[in-house]
């Protein structure tokens, strides 16, 4: 059953008072205990201090966080601004601003510069933020075919299967299997587009949402149509205010054009890394602390409000209209977005065929692999590597994650970067299971002391592996990989 969500009710009552919390709990039909647990979980319901914050991402850490922190009151979690780093966030009353290169812009209008995007299929060379622009570039054909009955759910699922599309959020699960499992379930069913991108080093979803909202929406509606969803939710990171506004406008334009095949709405995320984990995401939508659920049952059986739910990454959904446009072309050169930042001449978003060697990807962004100390591949849940011949593909030796590539030149202190990642995990651990909050705290202490004891790191790994969700399970990858990179150097 759909009920009014607790989070939107609390959002409408910011800044919160005790009466406001009690009222939100009453309207949502939940206990005051549940509402208070929620208030004490999400940072935006706590005290947000005014002032200037450094966006703490791997690039800022590589530049030397000490001097960048001057004139700030602290750090802010990564915001997909790595290509523009160092970046700052300024909080003034209810307003928030992004500061890059000496210029400040409110969250409400700030978007990544369009010039950061380099591609063809998933990243059209012109912005497609109006219905006309999107249609002029060949968009909406699949959606129109679905409306007329020329494209059936089964044909759509078959095309996605033949394309071999794997989820682009990091888990690389076959998309058609997820969609089919939900389609088989009993109605009502839901489709959720996961736009909670918070992995350090990644900004592909942010860019897609900000500049190509119709592409994402067409993909989400097609997927929703394929599974017979009674509603499509766009779960978008709360900080991406301009994207949220653009998506709402795009939903309106599609509705006017009679193309909103499934009722669609935007849900503002809880604003934490863990909200990207699909079951934690669902918990936050249901008005609880975004803590991962025990699996099974999986969301495809029991998802939102216990109903079959497909949670799909934004880039995965954007791929669906492209696949339907031409399966052959898709399979010849399967495009994947890579967020490339750090020590390269032209940091930005690059659409490259899967299988492109890491070194070539770096050269596309004006980097010189020979001159690099290492690359962080995949983000915080990623690895340091010097294997520049490594083909950027799923199910290889190294994890691609969502496609983050952060390059570090000879002068960079990789332990300082690692400390940033360790700090990130410790801050973002939800604390539900035991190995993760304990292990990420221990890990930060070890990294700060620059401990290179392989036995200890192996025991750290064995224990974090037993965590409840992917956050804890991957928290040690970067640490262990840095020891490997150092050993090989």
């Amino acid at each position, binding site marked *: 059953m759909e009920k009014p969500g607790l989070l939107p009710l609390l959002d409408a009552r910011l800044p919160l008072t005790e009466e406001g919390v009690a009222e939100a709990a009453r309207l949502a039909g939940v206990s005051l*205990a549940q509402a208070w647990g929620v208030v*004490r*979980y999400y940072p935006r319901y706590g005290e947000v201090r005014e002032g200037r914050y450094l966006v703490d991402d791997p690039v800022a850490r590589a530049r030397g966080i000490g001097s960048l922190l001057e004139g700030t009151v602290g750090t802010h979690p990564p915001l997909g601004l790595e290509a523009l780093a160092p970046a700052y966030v300024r909080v003034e009353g209810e307003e928030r601003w992004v500061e890059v290169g000496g210029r400040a812009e409110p969250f409400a209008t700030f978007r990544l510069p369009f010039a950061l995007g380099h591609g063809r299929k998933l990243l059209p060379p012109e912005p497609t933020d109006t219905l006309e622009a999107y249609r002029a570039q060949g968009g909406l054909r699949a959606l129109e075919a679905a409306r007329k009955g020329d494209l059936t759910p089964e044909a759509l699922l078959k095309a996605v299967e033949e394309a071999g599309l794997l989820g682009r959020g990091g888990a690389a699960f076959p998309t058609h299997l997820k969609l089919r499992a939900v389609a088989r379930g009993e109605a009502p069913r839901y489709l959720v587009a996961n736009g909670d991108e918070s992995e350090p080093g990644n900004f592909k979803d942010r860019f897609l949402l900000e500049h190509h909202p119709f592409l994402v929406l067409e993909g989400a509606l097609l997927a929703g149509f394929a599974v017979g969803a009674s509603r499509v939710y766009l779960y978008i990171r709360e900080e991406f205010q301009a994207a949220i506004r653009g998506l709402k406008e795009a939903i309106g334009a599609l509705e006017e054009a009679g193309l909103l095949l499934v009722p669609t709405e935007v849900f503002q995320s809880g604003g934490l890394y863990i909200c990207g984990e699909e079951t934690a995401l669902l918990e936050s939508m249901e008005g609880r602390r975004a803590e991962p659920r025990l699996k099974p049952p999986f969301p495809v059986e029991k998802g939102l409000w216990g109903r079959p739910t497909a949670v799909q990454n934004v880039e995965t959904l954007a791929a669906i209209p492209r696949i339907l446009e031409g399966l052959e072309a898709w399979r010849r050169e399967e495009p994947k977005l890579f967020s490339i930042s750090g020590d390269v001449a032209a940091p930005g978003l690059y659409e490259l065929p899967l299988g492109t060697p890491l070194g070539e990807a770096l050269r596309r962004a004006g980097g010189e692999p020979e001159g690099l100390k290492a690359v962080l591949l995949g983000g915080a849940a990623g690895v340091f590597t010097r294997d520049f011949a490594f083909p950027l593909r799923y199910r290889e030796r190294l994890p691609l994650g969502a496609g983050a590539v952060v390059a570090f030149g000879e002068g960079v202190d990789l332990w300082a970067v690692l400390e940033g990642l360790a700090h990130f995990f410790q801050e973002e651990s939800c*604390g539900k299971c035991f190995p993760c*909050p304990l292990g990420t705290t221990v890990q930060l*202490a070890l990294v700060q002391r620059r401990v290179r004891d392989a036995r*200890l790191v192996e*025991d750290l790994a064995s224990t974090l*592996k037993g965590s409840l969700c992917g956050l804890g399970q991957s928290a040690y990858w970067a640490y262990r990989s840095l020891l490997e990179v150092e050993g090989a150097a």
Partner: protein
Amino acid sequence: MRLKVDGKEMEAREGALLLELVQVPTLCHHPHTETRGLCRLCLVEVDGRLSPACATEAREGMEVWSDTPGLRALRKTLLEWLLLTTDLSLAPELQALALALEAEPGRWGEVPGRKGREAIEDNPFFLRDYAKCVNCRRCVDACGDGIMGVYALTLTGRGLLAHPTTPLDRPLPETPCVFCGNCVQVCPTGALRPLTEV
């Protein structure tokens, strides 16, 4: 139903928890509160994946390992981390387990923890001493969906800072608490303990 546990064929009834079939330590699991799957001390390897024995049902043809080198490292390390960060002085079972696993917490060096938390004495019946709390949630579940349905307890914070609290952080007498004592009963660490001996 047949399955293989530590290399031996076994018979199990439909719906049996793996916990009934293997010898593994537990901490968070409590049948009355339905708390499970959090501490990960009871993890076993099921068909190559780590699964909590307290939250996994036996299935036909399963292959379960309960004592691999990886699992031993995990249990020992977890105990070490708990000892480092939490006051376990009133948890004799955990101390015995640490001894049995030959835990050496000192090898990790200094780690910030929760030992510095001050005890809360806000009612005449029991103390809430969260320096001893491992955040197993049994008390929260006991007060809520698990037993009472009263909802006088919830959680605050995230990560290692997370621990139980009351709605609006009020003293317990100002909450729906009926002082039934169920939370105290299920607390495995002495973090919740009676103020007067009965």
